């Protein structure tokens, strides 16, 4: 069990490194879209929510599962759409350059 945890920890540490390396020297203009884009990615918890919601658990757990899916989905859909709206705005300006 603990061994399995270490394996997962390996994945966690490596992914942290990737995250650190990928986001370096972003121009301030992109801070807000980047924030909301990465925020949408953190909605990946939808996977966990779906598993919990689909397990056919007893009442309370099922309600929690349903809420989890709703919340996560708001995060995902809202996040990506909002980011796109922001970026579209930047894009348009560039073309008119």
């Amino acid at each position: 069990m603990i061994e399995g945890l270490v394996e997962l920890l390996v994945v966690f540490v490596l992914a942290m490194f990737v995250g650190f390396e990928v986001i370096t020297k972003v121009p301030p203009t992109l801070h807000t879209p980047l924030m909301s884009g990465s925020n949408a990615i953190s909605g990946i918890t939808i996977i966990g929510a779906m598993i919990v919601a689909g397990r056919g658990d007893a009442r309370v757990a099922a309600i929690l599962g349903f809420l989890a899916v709703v919340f996560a989905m708001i995060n995902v859909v809202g996040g990506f759409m909002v980011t796109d709206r922001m970026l579209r705005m930047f894009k348009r300006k560039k073309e008119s350059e």
Partner: protein
Amino acid sequence: MIALIKLIYLGAAVCFILGLKRLSHPATARSGNMLAALGMLVAIVATLFDQEILTFPVIIAGIVVGSAVGATFARTVKMTAMPQMVALLNGFGGGASALVAGAEFLRLQGGVATPINIAITIQLSVLIGSVTFSGSLIAFGKLQELVTGRAVTYPLQKTLNALLFASVLGLIAWLVVSGQPVPFIVLVGLALLLGVLSVIPIGGADMPVVISLLNSYSGIAAAMTGFVISNSGLIISGALVGASGLILTRIMCKAMNRSLANVLFGAFGSGATEVAAGPAGALERPIKQISAEDASTLLAFARQVVFVPGYGLAVAQAQHVVRELADLLEKRGVEVKYAIHPVAGRMPGHMNVLLAEADVPYDKLFDMDQINPEFDRTDVSVVIGANDVVNPAARNTPESPLYGMPILDVDNSHHIIVMKRSMRPGFAGVGNELFYDSKTTMLFGDAKDSLKKLATEVKEL
């Protein structure tokens, strides 16, 4: 089958990584966002085939409701309300992680003793998720002005928060040992309270940094959830967001020349400093005012005019009028430029978004580094509701809280016109020597009104 689903999760994670990479360059940002969204879609579809999933109605219902709400939010939000929107969405993400962990906790109640590592990660997931949830909601409230935007301070604040934090950790330790559900609810309550109390003392203008930090938390909450259900897809994506959020937070703090600790615990923008530094200096010393008529003449016959927008432009929603005035001036042969300070306004890229909304051409916007050498050659700089980002104290006064922040050197131009409503200080709560400069004239009033007057005058010239 399981192996295949895991492979697909890996693919989704790769999409996220590549998406984030593209998101951090202006030219590729939009495609990066789409790539990340694609990764998410793939992950969701793959999960439907997970063998642990027995019934679909709850899932489908949840997805439909959530998507509808999310899409409505995204469609209807105003461009200027983006920061609070991000905060709100972030809160939902954190909440979802806490809920998943909660459901898992309930399920494990029934059976045999929970393995200790699962117990720990469940509690951590609930803790971080709940803090993210309530903290984000407060950040949202502050920016939406449902809660006061000021830094709320009270005696023993830090001690209280530290105690709260310690007791939450104590509870987790206790829970890990006993596994009882009652204190679990207490844990949720305390975590929520902790989120509220840690964000309340932070000034509204520091919210972008707070949101970025909470965003990082929500990533870590997702990763913790991944540990709970042994899913490396969740772990990778969560860690990615966690790390990139931290880096982004650091970059933002650097741009304001402040430490993260100062942002979180400095109670910057609390009423206290603001009152102390504000009117005191303002009453004593002489300033020069200018009429809209004189100002318009000055502008109309200038060779180069630089507009310096700040937070006041956003408050007054004057982005369209400024564009109108710029068009009029350009028709008269005046060279018009916009100087964009990296932390002007209240969110990163605030000015860019606003001016983009008013269709100001991209190539008229100049970064601090590009425009600073230009002020020498500028006849009139028009400061529109900006204050801290043009405060020479950042260069000259080591005691100032702004000291060391790079600023726009508007004081090098031949004339400076400052538009604001009063002599009140800006976000940092300190006076501004620029207003007393012999080359500076003040044009008091709401920025939108003032700009409208100027436009009318220029038309009539």
